[in-house]
């Protein structure tokens, strides 16, 4: 009960840019997986390489990232991931 509640979700993509099958890629076409964790304070997402043959995500192969702070940006319109890469906050998450 002392743990901070976190919700995880994920979404697959076939490529780094929007394609006609970006919404619903078939397993064999999935190349990237976006893994998200959210707390009451933020949503942090990394889009990483994914191998559909062995279902492995490669967290060394980061394609993009997202970080939104709930308090100042409840609509998630201002991605501060790139501005925060070297911050203590992101280092702590990573």
């Amino acid at each position, binding site marked *: 009960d002392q743990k901070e*509640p976190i919700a995880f979700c994920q979404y697959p993509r076939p490529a780094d840019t929007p394609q006609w*099958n970006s*919404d619903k890629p078939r*397993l064999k076409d999935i190349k990237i997986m976006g893994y998200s964790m959210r707390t009451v304070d933020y949503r942090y*997402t990394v889009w990483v390489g994914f191998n559909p043959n062995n279902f492995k995500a490669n967290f060394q192969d980061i394609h993009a990232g997202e970080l939104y702070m709930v308090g100042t940006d409840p609509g998630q319109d201002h991605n501060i991931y790139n501005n925060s890469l070297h911050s203590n906050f992101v280092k702590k998450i990573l």
Partner: protein
Amino acid sequence: GGKNVLFIVVDDLRPTLGCYGDNLVKSPNIDQLASQSVVFQNAYAQQAVCAPSRVSFLTGRRPDTTRLYDFYSYWRVHAGNYSTLPQYFKENGYTTMSVGKVFHPGISSNYNDDYPYSWSIPPFHPSTEKYENTKTCKGKDGQLHANLVCPVDVAEVPEGTLPDIQSTEEAIRLLNIMKRKKQKFFLAVGYHKPHIPLRYPQEFLKLYPLENITLAPDPWVPEELPPVAYNPWTDIREREDVQALNISFPYGPIPEDFQRLIRQSYFAAVSYLDMQVGLLLNALDDLKLSRNTIVVFTADHGWSLGEHGEWAKYSNFDVATQVPLMFYVPGKTSSFANPGGRKFPYLDPFTHVSNLIPQGQTKKIVELVSLFPTLAELAGLLIPALCPETSFDVALCSEGESIVRYFVSMEEKVDCGGDDSDYYQD
């Protein structure tokens, strides 16, 4: 222990409801349920698309364990022979029944909604499901089209009814049988709307005059959004009325007047859904089953109504992953109904002014993968153990934890001396 379960799951319903603070949407019956329930304000699905989300919360495993990220495999042969939530109740003496869209149909549930593993009797599907994507929407030209925005005269559509109306009727029929047989049951009812096409009885449009419909507060694609995170909402582009707009791929945008039409119809479809939920809960009351039936209300994921320039689920944004989640537990979230008293009288969305306050709200972050152990605990069954790190060979375990610890019982509420502020604000 010993309580029945009524499990209501809605397709593509974000928490755009009165009980979640939405001032525009008319959802008096769901609000009434919330007024007797614990309401989770921060509940999230594991993947914002139907089949993976449903298989995830029905097995209590995340998509990386079900290995279902699309629509084209059945977890029992593709990942592991995992038990499901209804299967667990069935194996514990319940009669388990599925009405409408509970599992996503097709290969992802073995073309049979995982029957007989999960269900005691063959799942029911409304006969009018097959018309959902056909040309049944009357256009300005007087012809029938396969549109996105599709208010209909129910008397004129094939068979003179709609899938969710049929599902409500079947669910009520099954409740009557269970009452007569005095059989402990787990009844799952899966409603189709407000999934696209936005096809609903046209009278619900009256609840939402177009002049009251606003655009999303942030209807543009954020500059800092990585392209991989954006979804190009291809499914609505396939509808005839959207095709006619010649919208550029992938970023659009949709013309503002059509954005308003989509939002208006989504809200109207939510009120139509609310009516079905109201009729179902009213029947539960009529049969005096609301005093010993747990009611769970949730959705498979949300839907972006123009936020970030998107019109779909298929993303990790909150609008796509956040879901309504509430639990009515007689005697725990609400006092037992008095003999003859009613918990859920039907409220007409056309006349009822909703001012009901949710019974208990918590802002704790929770996940749908927790549904399985939570319902097991609420029903007095053994809670499935937490899964080990790798669980492909483990038939029964859960990757989510029971969230009953976040409930505040009626007794504790009374102990607060009538000051509910902490209770409501958690």
